[in-house]
Structure formats: C-alpha cells, structure tokens
C-alpha cells in the first residue's frame, strides 16, 4: 500500500488539522503526556473493575481478557454523520425488505436480480421461516453495519451484521470511561449522547411484541451462558434495560408460550432478545444436540406467541456472497441508488472472478462467505508464501465458499503511544434499531482500531482495540 494515499481523520492526507479535531487538538497540546499515560492505565483499571472483559474461546487460563481501549477519541462531524446515517437507514430498510421477500414471494429472484442458488443453496437460509411473518414485519431488530473510510467523503460498507451484532456495550462503556476520565473534554466539545441506547433498545423491542401481548410486554435477553465470549455484554444489556437475563435452562414452553422459571413459577415472555445462534435456538427444530435453546420455541414463534429478535434466518443477510449483491438489493427494494458503497467484490464462484483472484492473490483480501470475527481470512499483501499456497488450494477446492476484495487503504485515527500520537487503521460499527415505529441509529458506534502499526485487522480476537466515537453537534 502507498503510504501517501492514506487518509488520516485528524490530519487529512496533507497534514492539515481537520475541523472536527480542532478543539480536541487544543486540549491535547495543553496536556502533559505523563498525565495522559496515567489516565490510560486508569482506564484499564476502570474496565477491569466494571468487568468489561471478553472470554477467548479455547483458552482456559486467559479466561477473561480486556479489549484494549485507546483514550484518543475518534471524532466525526455532525454533517458527515447525517450523510452516513441516511445511507445506513436506506441499507437497513433494504435488508429487512429483502429478508421478508426471500421468505415469502422471492420477487427478487423472479426478477432475475440475484441467482436462485444463492438463496436456496445457502446454509444460512432457514426453510422453517418460509411464509412466517414476524411481528411488525421486522427481521433485523438490531443491526450493526461495518463501515470503513478511505477519504474525506468516501465510506464503504465492509460487512452487514444482521444476525447478532455485538460490541454495543463497548460503545457505551467507552463513553462512560471518557466521561469519567476527561469531563473537561465534554464541556469543550458538544458530543451527541449515546447513553440512550439501552432505553431505545427496550422501546424498540417492546414495539415489536406479538399482537397477543396484553399491556406491558415482558422482554428478556437470552444468553448462551457465562462462558460465552460476549457474556458481559448480554448481562450489561439486560441490566441496563431492567429485564431478566435468561439461559435455555430457565425457559420452557408452557401452555403455548415460552416461559421463564421464576421464584414464583413460570412466567411468559413476549419478546426474546436472543444472543444464541439460529442453529442452537431450538433442539426440536434445528440442532438436536443444543442445550442452549428452548425445545419448541420455533412452534410458539410460528404461532405468533413470541417475538424473537433478531428473527431466525436473518443470518443469510450477513453472507458475503449476498453482500456482493447488496447494491442491487438496495436498489430493488428502495427504488433508489444506494447511498453507501460496497467494497468491490469478486465472487470466487464465478470462473472469471476466480481466475482473477488466483492471479492476484497477494494483493487481495479473501474471506469465507460465512465467516466472521476475522477468522478464516487471508490478507494477501501480508501473507507468507505458505499461507498463499494453502489458500490457493482451498480456493480451487471450494470456490463458492469465498469472495475476494482489494485491500483498501483504510483511514487512520491517532492512538496514544509512548512516543505520542501515532496513526492506526480503524473501522466503524454503528448500531441500528428497527421497529414498526421506525429506525433509530445511535450517533457514533463502535470504532475498532488495529493497534499494530500498519495492520488492517481490527478484530478484538486478533489484537484490535477500541476507541470512543464522537459525533459532534454542528
């Protein structure tokens, strides 16, 4: 990659301080780096005390780890955000309409805009959902759209997370930590609040309650349990919403409702915000081995006795082959050209594309269509010869399993290092709530940052950190 073309969100491409960072830069110049280093450590202690940790799969002794937090905020102007959020809203509407369509009349296939095999042959497509209309017509109650930036006005969607986007607790706790450590920054800058998210989430979920719900819907969060990597977040959200955090073992179907075992007997649930994958949701309808789900919940769901958020079967929208059709999908359902760009994508299932990808493997990023968390991915420019050879084999064996994208020159934002500010690559995951009452986007989102110099991998499971993300009032 060509260093000169990298866009820094604080200093632009030409070392000119950009507007949104003006106030912050004044403040930073007046600070003693030693004091800031102490603050950086203080932030870590705060995170440990609050228990904002994640569990790493397959590592018993390092059971709980912190996601590194960087104290330098990422700052976005109100104007930039407005533009972005229009694009996000358009995309989320389209995803929701797409999901309704593929589980009903499949107009998009009839219209020849996407190949039939892409849906029917997709592991994430749930035949059990065909003809099922979720309450309020909402499939994706909570969505995270991963964005990357390559220039002052250039944002691309890297992937859509319509299944179970995680990370929102970090967005909230990062802000909480910044407010505690640097209150003065918030009196100099007018930062749009994120703290309403739990309230908005609660309202949004309640608005999706099934029609049969009496008055005040009972909402609960379903977690796989304390050993899940995102357990903290599940507990955090339940706590912030003031609802129960349940596991499969707490639930059973009683009189046609999904009910939780309380100290006073079984109590029905109206809306279940589940953080358990489709496959584990119902041992009677999906994976019979699952102990994380509720036997028979799908039957209750189909009968309209409970809202499951996100709806089963939404995971297909996260598929990276589907992603490559997203511009067509947005246009098909909204009748408008897409406001947010996709990253150019080669579908390795197509012979011409595969030939190109094999020829240019060392320049490309190759991803599994069902992969997530940065696993099973090849970054051509930094890969070893052995990695490349191994991937070439995999590609030839199962081309339909992969897509490829150019390595973008992702924007950078400064992080605080021993030698002062240093630019690192970032992405952004804004969080979107969908209900019949409308679409709600929290200003900002989760900024993930690759802490290693030059690295493009921002995943927390692979050495990424996070930052507080500010959207300013203009």
């Amino acid at each position: 990659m060509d260093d000169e073309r990298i866009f820094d969100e604080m200093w632009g491409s030409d070392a000119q301080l950009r507007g949104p960072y003006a106030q912050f830069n004044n403040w930073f110049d007046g600070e003693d780096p030693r004091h800031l280093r102490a603050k950086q450590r203080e932030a870590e202690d705060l995170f440990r005390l609050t228990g904002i940790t994640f569990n790493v799969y397959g590592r018993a002794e390092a059971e709980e780890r912190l996601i590194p937090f960087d104290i330098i905020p990422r700052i976005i102007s109100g104007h930039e955000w407005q533009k972005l959020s229009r694009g996000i809203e358009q995309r989320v509407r389209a995803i929701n309409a797409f999901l309704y369509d593929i589980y009903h009349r499949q107009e998009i296939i009839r219209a020849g805009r996407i190949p039939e095999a892409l849906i029917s042959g997709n592991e994430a497509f749930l035949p059990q959902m065909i003809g099922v209309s979720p309450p309020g017509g909402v499939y994706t109650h909570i969505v995270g759209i991963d964005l990357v930036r390559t220039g002052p006005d250039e944002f691309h969607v890297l992937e859509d997370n319509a299944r179970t986007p995680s990370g929102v607790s970090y967005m909230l706790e990062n802000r909480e930590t910044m407010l505690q450590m640097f209150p003065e920054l918030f009196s100099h800058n007018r930062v749009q609040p994120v703290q309403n998210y739990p309230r908005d989430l609660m309202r949004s979920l309640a608005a999706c309650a099934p029609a049969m719900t009496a008055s005040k819907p009972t909402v609960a969060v379903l977690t796989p349990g304390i050993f899940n990597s995102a357990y903290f977040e599940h507990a955090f959200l339940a706590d912030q919403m003031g609802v129960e955090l349940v596991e499969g073992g707490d639930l059973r179907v009683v009189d046609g409702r999904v009910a939780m075992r309380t100290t006073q007997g079984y109590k029905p649930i109206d809306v279940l915000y589940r953080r358990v994958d489709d496959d584990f949701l119902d041992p009677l309808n999906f994976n019979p081995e699952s102990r994380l789900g509720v036997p028979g919940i799908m039957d209750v769901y189909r009968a309209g006795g409970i809202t499951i958020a996100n709806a089963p079967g939404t995971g297909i929208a996260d598929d990276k082959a589907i992603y490559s059709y997203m511009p067509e999908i947005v246009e098909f359902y909204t009748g408008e050209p897409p406001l947010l760009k996709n990253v150019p994508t080669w579908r390795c299932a197509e012979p011409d594309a595969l030939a190109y990808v094999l020829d240019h493997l060392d320049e490309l990023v190759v991803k599994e269509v069902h992969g997530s968390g940065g696993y099973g991915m090849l970054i051509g420019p930094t890969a070893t010869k052995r990695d490349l050879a191994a991937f070439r084999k995999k590609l030839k064996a199962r081309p339909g399993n992969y897509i490829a994208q150019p390595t973008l020159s992702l924007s950078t934002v400064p992080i605080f290092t021993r030698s002062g500010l240093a630019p690192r690559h970032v992405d952004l995951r804004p969080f979107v709530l969908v209900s019949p009452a409308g679409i709600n986007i929290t200003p900002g989102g989760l900024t993930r940052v690759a802490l290693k110099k030059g690295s493009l991998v921002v995943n927390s499971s692979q050495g990424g950190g996070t930052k507080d993300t500010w959207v300013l009032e203009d």
Partner: protein
Amino acid sequence: MLGKTANGLFWMYRYLERAENTARLIETGQRIALTRLTESDNEWRSILQTAGVCDGYDAVHDSITKDSAIDWMLRAKENSSSVLSSMSAARQNARFVRTALTHEVWEAMNGGYMRTRDLLSRKVSERDLATALGTVRQSTALVRGSTHGTMMRNDIFNFSRIGTYLERADNTARILDVKYYVLLPSVMAVGSAVDNVQWETILRSVSARGGFRMVYGSSTDPRDIAQFLILDKRMPRSLAFGVSAIRTNLNHLVANYGHRPPSFGMADHIERSYLSYDIDAILDYGLHEFIQKVLTLIEELGQQIEIDYRFYE
C-alpha cells in the same frame, strides 16, 4: 425473579460469608500458635475441622503443619472452601446474577476478588499474613456495606440475606460442634473455668470477644459462652440471631409472593423449638446432640429453600 438468580444470589453471599469466616479462623489459629508456649498442631486440626476442610486436607497431606494448614485454608485451589476458592465462587455467582446487583455491589465484589486473587497468587509469608487476611475481611465488608447501602429491599435482598445467614449459622454451629468437648467437662464441673486458650479460640473465631466482655465482663464461665453463641439475639453471629434473620427474610418473601411454602415453617420451627429456651435446657438435652440436631435442621432448611423457590429445574 428467575429461580436461577435466587440461587446465584444465595450462593454468592454464602461464599462471601465463607471467605470471611475462613479468614477469621486462620487469624484465630495463627494467634493461638503465636501466643502458645508449646507448639501444638492439634489446634490446627481442630481449626481445619471447624472450617469443614479437614478430610480434604488429609487426602493430600501426610501431616498437619501450620504452614500447610494455612495454605490449604487460604489459597488451595483443590479446597473448594479456601478463601481464594470462596471469593472466586462468590464472584462467579455475582457474574451469573450481575443484573440483580447494583453497580456498586458488583464493583465491590469484583474489586474484592481481584485484590484477593493478587494477594493470594503466591504463598503468603507469615509476615504478610495479617495484611492479606485484613484485606479479605475488608473486601467482604465492602460488599456487605454496599449491599446494605444500595440494594432495594426486595426479594433480591432477601435471598442475599438468607444465603449470608445460613452460612453464618452453619459456621457458628460447626465451631461449637468442634469445641463442645472443651465446654462440656467444665460445664459439668460447675464453677471450673475453660482453658484460656480455648476460650479465646471460640470467641475470636466469631469476632465476639468485645461483645462477650460487654455482656459478661471478665467471666470465663463456659455456660456464658454457650449462652452467648447459641441464644443471644443481640450477637450477630449467634445461632439464634442467624436463624431469626433467615425466618424474617423468608417471612418477607411470604408477604411479597403471597404464598407460604414449607421452608418458612421449618425456619419458624427451628427458632421456636430450639432457640427460644435458656442454656440449661440445651445442656439437659445434651450440647453435642443439640448442635448436631441444629446443624441438620439448617441443612434441611437450605435444601427446602432451593425447592420452594425453584433454584433448579
């Protein structure tokens, strides 16, 4: 409230209380070892027995030494009732019931666990022992304090208190169970005094020396000690106090839920039938038999509470 949450709260506070009681027992043992002229590892055996960890200790040790007894009670991972294991279990249960706790209680619990874990990450030298045990007691006190200061007085609070007092009553009963033979001969020989050291052990291990002095002055009459630890309703670690607190909290649940399950009747029965007489009646019954009986009843009460409030499926 979820049955699972009631279960988690109950055990979080039981383990917290256990960590504190074990720390106190170690302090007592250490104190006796230091003030005795002749070394007596026998005392450590009875301390291990009081903590209910003697069998586990014997399974992996050939003999009892002060160092290994302290280490077993303080930090052994194989000992599920060691201070470290108890704090870790309390904190794990707190993670389970995170949504039922206030932010302050959770931070006190998590912070207390982290301090304890760091302090006990390697063997504690004799010189550092007092500080380490002090930190454990402060940590548990902080959780208790924030519980009182910030938690709603609802079923969450009730289950927390029930866990605390069941563990505490059990602990006091076990101290008496292990030491009854010390009290007993002297009770029979009216007018004789309990061995000073034994007297100290018993009162220290429930932090009751000051309280006892306040009530009985300089008495060393074993009847007074037995009366104080079993029946005194002002003494927060006596059996009568603990069982009465359990009954009170169960009664709140009865009022709150509008349902009177068997566990309430059991607590009521223990209080009325065993803890409402004077010490002479207990001595007539037989001190040993009495303590055994109460220990069994408390255990059964715990099991009934688990059933009544659907802790498990």
